[in-house]
């Protein structure tokens, strides 16, 4: 019973397992522990949902450059072009 209560109340461990499960693997034992915890813990259930959402948002954010298109400063581009041309000619 004591062991079970430890699982029930330990949100720190539960959120740790949630993260590990999202990005890697958890053991069967850990998976059972997490399931037991989530049955009785709405806060962690919500955490799991939000955490997954945040991951997906981040992946999307990195894949599409968020918001307006990012472009390099034109002046810097001209200088860069010059450096490349110089280097090509010197070789």
């Amino acid at each position, binding site marked *: 019973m004591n062991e079970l209560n430890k699982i029930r109340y330990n949100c720190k461990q539960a*959120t740790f397992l949630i993260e590990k499960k999202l990005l890697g693997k958890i053991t069967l034992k850990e998976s059972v522990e997490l399931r037991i915890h989530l049955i009785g813990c709405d806060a962690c259930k919500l955490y799991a949902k939000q955490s997954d959402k*945040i991951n997906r948002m*981040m992946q999307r954010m*990195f894949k599409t450059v968020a*918001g307006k298109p*990012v472009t390099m400063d034109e002046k810097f581009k001209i200088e860069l072009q010059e450096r*490349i041309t110089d280097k*090509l000619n010197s*070789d």
Partner: protein
Amino acid sequence: MDKTKRAETHELLKPQEWVNMYADYLYAYAITRIQNQEQARDLVQETFLSALEGMHRFEGKSSERTWLTAILKNKIIDVYRKRSSGLQMIDVNRAEDEQGDFFSETTGHWNNEHAPQPFGIDHSDPLMSKEFNRILQQCMQKLPALWLSVFSMKHMDDELTDTICAELKISASNFWVIIHRAKVNLRACLQKNWI
């Protein structure tokens, strides 16, 4: 590879076109990963210069853009490494310290003021999503350098955990501590600034 063959693959590269064709792409790639305009610009420049010197190593197995991106990616990892070097232990200790804030020391249960609340975000609303993204980016900037590096590598490029641990010189168990801490902090920051 004999000399003529090498010369052929070599000719697939058009360095005179690089700025025109790839500068914006590479710059955008860098800036989403290191969030610093000047540094991103310099990294693109270094990428082109390294590529010029390493043109003979291009084997034509990938596209020119993929090849340049790979060079840039290595430079970005160097930045991560520099930003977080020496801070590993401080970061992880800080992670451990902060646990007391989010979870009760005796039970491990959420402390009331930190327990997750619904975001109430409607993702079909583009303006709302955009604003949420903006806050997410700001919250990421508040994470310690090492955490952000680990996080960025894992989420952006779906890098293998082993690779990240090796590149940033952290143990596998520290990796998970960091991932967990970073997410708990990030989620809390979103909740604080959104609701």
